[in-house]
């Protein structure tokens, strides 16, 4: 027994010798992160004690684990980029990084990962930043539990919270991003998963996809952003159980879909957005079990949208349920609940006996001549809407929900 213990201890010691622990603090022999990295060997652990470290352009070029104790402050003094990771297998944990330099020619980031694999960035707090976490041509990384708090005022001189560029298989979870330009931005990033993040008060989009395929985002909350979430030029994206709230402004929407194919939008809540979903050139998308509540427009279809299916959604108290700008309809609406439905259900099977027409004449008119919106809620408008409902002339006559539900769907 004793022998075994000694043996184990020996192995443990050997291990420790092999993977050293380097301490950095203000009064230690090693008092900067840069020298610590210089002295460290591969797979060492660097522990940064509480304190303020005025450093920038820290390059982590070997597989290291950097752990901050009690959130040591790394102050970049607005001089440029703060941490750049160029090696694989790097873990950065528990630092407070602030004062990233602003530049109009280079995207300075609080922490940048370049051409790396298997990195982990977690428990960081980023403040006063230009770009927050910038992942560049790196794969299989994890970005967990970070807090990015920017102070962006104008779009042109601010950066994004978390940006993935040409990076695949990245997991972004439990992050909180606020007051930056785009909360989370993905460009050419495939097979990424974005879960349980909160993205609020951003200047432009809470989440922004560009040319990124096969990604999934779920259980995120997007609130009070300049324009909600934009998903553009991407394929096969799964959007589950997200909350889009209060993206309320003159040019805001909960979600903007542009050139999106084969996506799934399931179980999301759209609450108090000027436009719930703005759809343009998007095909074969499944909309199911979403709640659209108190939006200006629940769904605005701009054109070139084919074979989309809207089933079992709740449309509750929106000023306009659906806006359509053409007379051609190739999309299917079935078994939704519409709070504006006025039909009856004689056989009590929960399905209304009269089909529901989600496009009102007024929404058609507003699409044509936007200024007419000033007549919203006027008695005359109610009258023409009613007459259009009785005999549709202007709105697509096959655009109807043949099985409108009479009770709100609860799942």
């Amino acid at each position, binding site marked *: 027994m004793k022998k075994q213990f000694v043996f184990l201890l020996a192995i443990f010691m050997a291990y420790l010798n092999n993977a050293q622990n380097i301490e950095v603090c203000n009064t230690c022999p090693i008092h900067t992160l840069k020298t610590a990295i210089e002295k460290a060997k591969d797979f060492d652990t660097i522990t940064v004690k509480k304190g303020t470290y005025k450093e920038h352009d820290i390059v982590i070029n070997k597989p290291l684990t950097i752990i901050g104790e009690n959130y040591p402050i790394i102050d970049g003094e607005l001089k440029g980029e703060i941490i750049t990771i160029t090696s694989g297998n790097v873990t950065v944990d528990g630092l407070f990084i602030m004062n990233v330099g602003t530049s109009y020619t280079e995207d300075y980031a609080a922490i940048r990962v370049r051409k790396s694999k298997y990195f982990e960035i977690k428990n960081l707090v980023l403040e006063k930043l230009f770009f927050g976490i910038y992942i560049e041509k790196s794969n299989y990384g994890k970005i967990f539990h970070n807090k990015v708090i920017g102070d962006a005022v104008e779009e042109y001189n601010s950066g994004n919270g978390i940006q993935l560029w040409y990076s695949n298989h990245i997991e972004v979870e439990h992050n909180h991003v606020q007051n930056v330009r785009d909360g989370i931005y993905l460009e050419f990033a495939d097979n990424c998963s974005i879960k349980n993040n909160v993205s609020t008060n951003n200047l432009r989009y809470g989440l922004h996809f560009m040319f990124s395929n096969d990604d999934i985002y779920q259980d995120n909350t997007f609130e009070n952003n300049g324009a909600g979430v934009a998903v553009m030029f991407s394929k096969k994206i799964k959007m589950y159980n997200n909350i889009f709230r209060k993206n309320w402004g*003159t*040019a805001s929407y909960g979600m903007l879909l542009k050139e999106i194919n084969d996506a799934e939008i399931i179980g999301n809540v759209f609450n108090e957005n000027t436009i719930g979903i703005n759809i343009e050139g998007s095909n074969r998308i499944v909309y199911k079990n979403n709640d659209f509540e108190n939006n*200006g427009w629940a769904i605005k279809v701009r054109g070139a949208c084919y074979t989309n299916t809207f089933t079992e959604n709740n449309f509750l108290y929106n000023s306009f349920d659906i806006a359509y700008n053409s007379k051609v309809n190739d999309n299917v609406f079935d078994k939704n609940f519409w709070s504006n439905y006025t039909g009856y259900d004689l056989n009590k099977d929960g399905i209304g006996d009269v089909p529901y027409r989600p496009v009102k004449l007024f929404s058609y008119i507003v699409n044509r001549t936007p200024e007419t919106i*000033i007549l919203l809620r006027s*008695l*005359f408008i109610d009258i023409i809407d009613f007459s259009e409902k009785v005999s549709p002339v202007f709105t697509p006559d096959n655009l109807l929900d043949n099985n409108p539900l009479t009770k709100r769907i609860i799942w």
Partner: protein
Amino acid sequence: MLKILKYSFYDLMRSRWSYVYLAFYLLLGTVLLFLNNDLSKAVITLMNVIIVLVPLIGTIFGVMYYYNSKEFTELLLAQPLKRSSIFLGQYLGVAISLSMSLILGLGIPFILYGLFKSSAIWDFSLLLITGAFLTFIFTALAFNIALSNENKIKGFGYAILLWLFLAIIYDGIFLMSLIMFEDYPLDKLSLVGTMLNPIDLSRTLILLKLDISALLGYTGAIFKKFFGTNFGLIISFIMLIIWVILPTLRIVKKSRKKDF
């Protein structure tokens, strides 16, 4: 003038119609709150009702009161009284008693429901203020019509037509002209068009205060300025006041010259 105002006011307070009007609003307010359970939603529904009904009742009541009390008016005219004070007194008596029915009728159920604890109080008070303005405007218009027409049937006809025009037909013409001129910038035209109709004006005024205003703002910079800031609110209020003053001035002018 105050004496005549007081007399008209008490006369109306005793009349059955004031109570019916009051009871109607009481019922409406209670039922709405009972069904909605949400103050801010109820405010929107109420807006739809107020914008249509208040002008209608204001016009009909105004015309009716003028014709009914015509004999008494002639009796008063025989006394050494200023004509303007007689007619203004009557007008204010009708308008104030109608506004009071409105404010009490809607206010009581809302206060009982817990208005003072709710954030909807400002929206609600704006609603009542606009309602009162509409009453004053349309009663004044009704008095104008009645003063200009000796014939009762004709007077009623014009009054109803006026209401129909401002509540429905105007919006139709407005909409048509907006669509006809859609190639031109329409921001100013549509705002001016709204200002020229007190019903549209009150509707936009209430919408301004509700969340929906952002919806209206998306079309252009002028709309955004109008609906996004207090600018729109101030302009709308000024226009409403002008809408009260102009018909009232005409009552004074018309009554001075009228032959009885």
